[in-house]
């Protein structure tokens, strides 16, 4: 099929392929398999249209009848007026063996977000374009990508807000690529397991826990996190220096640690863990995580810097150290907790496999598959912890 790289080589066989997203805005239109643009125009002219009208219609509706992932609402191409503004989508196509940007020219549709256009591409020109998505409402955190070089959610990026006639869509750079726009975000799940979970203090005599709202207002901001991992993607500590992944958890998990560290009922002190194992000191607070957060969490000001100050209390401030010695330790050290319950012993979604297998045997697998549940039998993590939907 034109404009789509064969899976074996990772390189597009035809179409306007370039490594330079700034070049080649003119052509790149691909039609459905087995139908050339000239043939399609000829058929349309035979129905009484002028050549110009026929060409425009063919460019707009090419391949729409093929179906694919997008619904008729997603495709929307058949509703296009004959004369419409065009946009060139430069989409990264490839897999671990290599890849390149492929140009797709298609008409602009008012009100679309980038994910709509990706779906329209899947329905018309690039049926096997892989893209992870789920809710289309900015709440599942699945459709993270780099649009015009900026990490953002495809479903929350409006096409009319992007300048120029060319839009570049690339996968998140920080994570290994699986295919096209889908990356392997396993790193984040490994990091999540390094942080000891919430362990509350003893309940009150009546067997309940009580907190006041002012005690938890601060951490409720952090609970808005949708785990899109855009903050992880943009963080230069691991984006540009991959070796740091061994020592650095990343902004999302500093937010997670802040939730637990500031919790009024928690009994674990994670400061030494943050300093010695999760690499809080690597962060140089350039605030990119805050800039890209689709939930507008003030990651740097409200999570990372307060954690840095708490670590300074514990490791760099002799006065605070003296105060702690006088008052005594009130929380268990996270490293000691990890000794008792190592991170590698924490349960993961893999532990659910027996239960899922039981469901499969009882015939429930068909309904789950049709609902788009992740299929991890490919050996990768394309579905990850999020929903998955790949074209083709």
């Amino acid at each position, binding site marked *: 099929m034109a404009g789509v790289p064969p899976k074996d080589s990772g390189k597009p066989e035809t179409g306007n392929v370039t*490594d*330079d*997203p*700034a070049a080649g805005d003119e052509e790149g239109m691909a039609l459905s398999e087995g139908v050339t643009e000239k043939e399609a125009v000829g058929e349309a002219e035979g129905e009484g249209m002028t050549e110009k009208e026929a060409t425009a219609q063919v460019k707009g509706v090419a391949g729409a009848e093929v179906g694919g992932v997008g619904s008729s609402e997603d495709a929307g191409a058949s509703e296009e007026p004959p004369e419409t503004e065009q946009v060139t989508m430069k989409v990264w196509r490839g897999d671990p063996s290599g*890849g390149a*940007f492929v140009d797709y020219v298609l008409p602009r549709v008012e009100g679309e977000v980038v994910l709509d256009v990706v779906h329209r591409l899947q329905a018309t020109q690039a049926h096997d374009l892989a893209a992870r998505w789920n809710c289309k409402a900015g709440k599942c955190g699945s459709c993270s990508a*780099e649009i*015009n*070089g*900026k990490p953002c959610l495809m479903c929350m990026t409006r096409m009319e807000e992007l300048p120029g006639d060319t839009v*570049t869509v*690339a*996968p998140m*750079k*920080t*994570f*290994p690529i699986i295919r096209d726009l889908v*990356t*392997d975000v*396993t790193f984040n*799940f*490994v990091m999540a397991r390094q942080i000891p979970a919430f362990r509350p203090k003893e309940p009150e005599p009546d067997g309940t826990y009580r907190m*006041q709202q*002012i005690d938890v207002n601060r951490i409720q901001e952090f609970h808005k996190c949708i785990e899109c991992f855009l903050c992880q993607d943009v963080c230069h*500590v691991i*984006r*540009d*220096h991959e*070796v*740091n*992944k061994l*020592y650095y958890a990343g902004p999302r998990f500093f937010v997670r640690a802040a939730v637990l560290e500031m919790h*009024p009922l928690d009994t674990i002190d994670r400061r030494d863990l943050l300093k010695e*194992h999760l690499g809080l*000191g*690597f962060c*140089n*607070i*350039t*605030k*990119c995580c805050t*800039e890209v957060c689709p939930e507008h969490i*003030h990651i740097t*000001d409200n999570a990372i*810097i*307060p954690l840095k*100050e*708490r670590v*300074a209390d514990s*490791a*760099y*401030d002799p006065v605070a150290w003296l105060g702690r010695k006088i008052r005594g330790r009130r929380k268990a050290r996270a*490293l000691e907790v*990890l*000794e008792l319950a*190592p991170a*590698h012993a924490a349960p993961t979604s*893999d532990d659910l496999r027996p239960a899922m297998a039981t469901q499969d045997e009882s015939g429930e697998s068909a309904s789950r598959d049709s609902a788009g549940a992740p299929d991890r039998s490919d*050996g990768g*993590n394309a579905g990850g912890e999020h929903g998955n939907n790949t074209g083709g």
Partner: protein
Amino acid sequence: MKYGLRAQHAPVASAEECNVTIVEEARDSAPTAIPVEIGKPRGGPRDRRTLRKDSWWQSPTVTVVILSTFVGYSTFAAFQGRNYYVGSGRHRNLLSPFYSPCMTHACVAGSHPLGIWFQFWQFSPALLVLIIPLGLRLTCYYYRKAYYRAFWQSPPACAVADGHARYTGETRFPLVWQNIHRYFFFLAFFLNIILTIDAIEAFRLPGEGVGMTIGTIFLLVNAALLWMYSSSCHSFRHICGGNLNEFSKHRIRYRIWKIVTPLNARHMQIAWTSLVVVGLTDLYVRLVAAGVFTDPKIFVVH
């Protein structure tokens, strides 16, 4: 490529599927590498610094220009060692914030109300004073962002490649010393008190009575902005209440924290404004002291 302590053995079957190597005894010594696998191919063009199309270079460029101008000017002002005090000869009591408190034997008459504390100091008095604001701003969480981005290119902007091949952040000397920011905050707190007294003293016009001049306004605004800068500091936010987990048991500290938090959200704006104003205040005092123009009076009460 696999890294990590004992990362080559004890892989668990299920973990292999997600390319994670589990380490059985990973915590023998610190620091421990977390068992993740790195070096796998990543998407996007490898040879491009960024795919961004906007003017991402504007912000670091502006930062470089403003900070360089300020550093250049303040270096000149600090080493000049004169024209920092407008005294009774001109019926004013204006002391440059770069030289306050003036406590060395080189200080001109009338400029050292706290006395001479550093007899041994042979250089400009400003070099002693400026250690505090320099240390405060150098370790400030906002300025760190500004100069890491603009000067150190680490990174120059979000999603733009880092300017260095290797990166250890603030984990090692000298950058690990950024953690002493709170101590500079305490010293700056003391300095703010001195500068506030200077601003009040500027209302005294020797030989004319009490009044207000343009110079008085400069010193007042400068002191107010420095108070705001200190009050919006992240370290202060932590000390006044941020280090608590149960606000409900510390109502007064919670109230202070509630006041400081919105100021802290504007720390960047306050930092730039106070930086410019402190430079302009010194420039104004310097020009008046050099006799370039006379400090205009707004009102005088005899």
